[in-house]
């Protein structure tokens, strides 16, 4: 890459300069316009003056010889739910269902919202600062989460969805299988040691008893998706060879995420073919070899992922370990 594209130094690239001139009218004004927060909510703080008055009042009551038990009533942990019938609170442990023509909006504490489509069934499992967990048994939900990664978990009959800072749609079928489509950010989809890492613009299927399938771009063909399903969920089938060939032949540069996942999912004998196809789009970085990938070297797999430009595996590994540690800690 020219230094000019990176830091505007060195010999200027005429085409980049022309693009900069063309696009300059779209830029943020300098300085930016004043920030107007007058009608916005503020960070809630306990006013010091009120705290002092409360303390003084308590001391006065005790000094007056009054026997007083102060009961501080904390709100029951739960998530606010809004439906056409009104607002209510979903407490921990309770199931919630939407009828055939109903939708609901669920506030996930202070970290995001879920819109639930008709015919859905869900349960709040736990909610506390930094950790919010629910079970989604069936239906379709749209989640928008603005908290840092690894705070919002959705259990389904066949997998666990871990929010990594994103917006996504999750559908769970009657048989417990489902589909997750990511609109913004990333979602981790994990069952035991099987994990899928799904970026924006990608989707992944999940099946009961198996877990998440390989992520695929939403621009791929139906044949491509069916071939991936054969590789993921029927690896001993007779037409696996044909399915892998179809995936490799139809893969384009955008499918690098799919190919990277396949490196660990196809039989050892086929890894070389996947390596070659991925290498044709994203050359393996220094230190990553065909033999190493064929041997399943985790360090090399991580290094290659990092070169895709979708975020580093160090963060992913940290989050992954954290949610495994927390898997049954509700």
């Amino acid at each position, binding site marked *: *890459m020219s230094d000019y594209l990176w830091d505007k130094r060195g010999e200027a690239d005429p085409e980049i300069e022309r693009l900069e001139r063309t696009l300059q009218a779209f*830029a943020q004004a300098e*300085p930016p316009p004043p*920030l107007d927060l007058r009608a916005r*909510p503020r960070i809630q703080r306990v006013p010091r003056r009120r705290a002092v008055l409360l303390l003084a009042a308590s001391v006065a009551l005790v000094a007056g010889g009054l026997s007083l038990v102060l009961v501080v009533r904390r709100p029951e942990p739960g998530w606010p739910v809004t439906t056409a019938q009104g607002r209510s609170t979903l407490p921990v442990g309770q199931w919630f269902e939407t009828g055939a023509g109903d939708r609901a909006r669920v506030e996930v504490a202070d*970290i995001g919202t879920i819109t639930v489509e008709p015919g859905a069934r869900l349960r709040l499992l736990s909610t506390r600062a930094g950790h919010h967990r629910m079970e989604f048994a069936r239906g379709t939900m749209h989640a928008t989460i603005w908290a*840092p990664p690894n705070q919002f978990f959705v259990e389904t009959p066949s997998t666990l969805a871990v929010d990594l800072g994103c917006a996504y749609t999750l559908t769970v079928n009657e048989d417990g299988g489902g589909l997750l489509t990511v609109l913004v*950010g990333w979602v981790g989809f994990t069952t035991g040691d099987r994990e899928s890492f799904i970026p924006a613009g990608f989707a992944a299927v999940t099946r009961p008893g198996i877990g998440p399938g390989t992520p695929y771009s939403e621009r791929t063909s139906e044949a491509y998706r069916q071939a991936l399903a054969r590789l993921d969920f029927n690896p001993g089938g007779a037409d696996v060879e044909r399915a892998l060939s179809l995936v490799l032949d139809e893969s384009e540069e955008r499918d690098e995420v799919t190919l990277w996942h396949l490196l660990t999912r196809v039989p050892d004998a086929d890894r070389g073919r996947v390596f070659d196809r991925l290498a044709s789009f994203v050359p393996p970085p220094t230190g990553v070899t065909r033999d190493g990938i064929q041997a399943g070297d985790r360090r090399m797999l991580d290094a290659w992922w990092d070169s895709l430009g979708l975020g580093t595996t160090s963060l992913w590994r940290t989050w992954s370990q954290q949610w495994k540690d927390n898997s049954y800690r509700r």
Partner: protein
Amino acid sequence: MPRVPALAETETARLVRSAQTGDREAFAELYQRFARMVHGVVLARIARTEVDDVVQDVFATALERLGSLREPAAFGGWLAAIARHRALDRGRRTTPTEALADHMAATRGGDPVEALAVLDAIRSLPEAYSETLVLRLVEGMTGAEIAERTGLTPASVRVNLHRGMKLLREKLT
């Protein structure tokens, strides 16, 4: 690869901690520092005429939620995530009809039709590339600045710039 703006990150973390205690001047400084990044992230997704309003909304949301941010050094990535979500929400509610050419013609120089075509081409790229290219080509940020403000690693930004630019050249030829 070393993270160039380590000092700036420290200053950002200090500002975030101050803002979390209610220091409005600290939050105003954060706004000055991050407004361009948020503007670019939003512009990569929705019509220009909607962007300024969404940027204000992003910072209002950030102020409201700032107490839930446990790692002040992660402010940039956290803010970028809010910006992406807010842009997505706005995109769902409004049709991105770009009465933009008129708007631009009335503002600054350049060829608005060509600018719109280039911006559309950038927006058609995969998300990671389009966002990084808008921050570089529209907002004028360097690669190191993009990494520091968005929380991405410099290596990721470098890859996004390189591959995004390659795809953009192909689209524009």
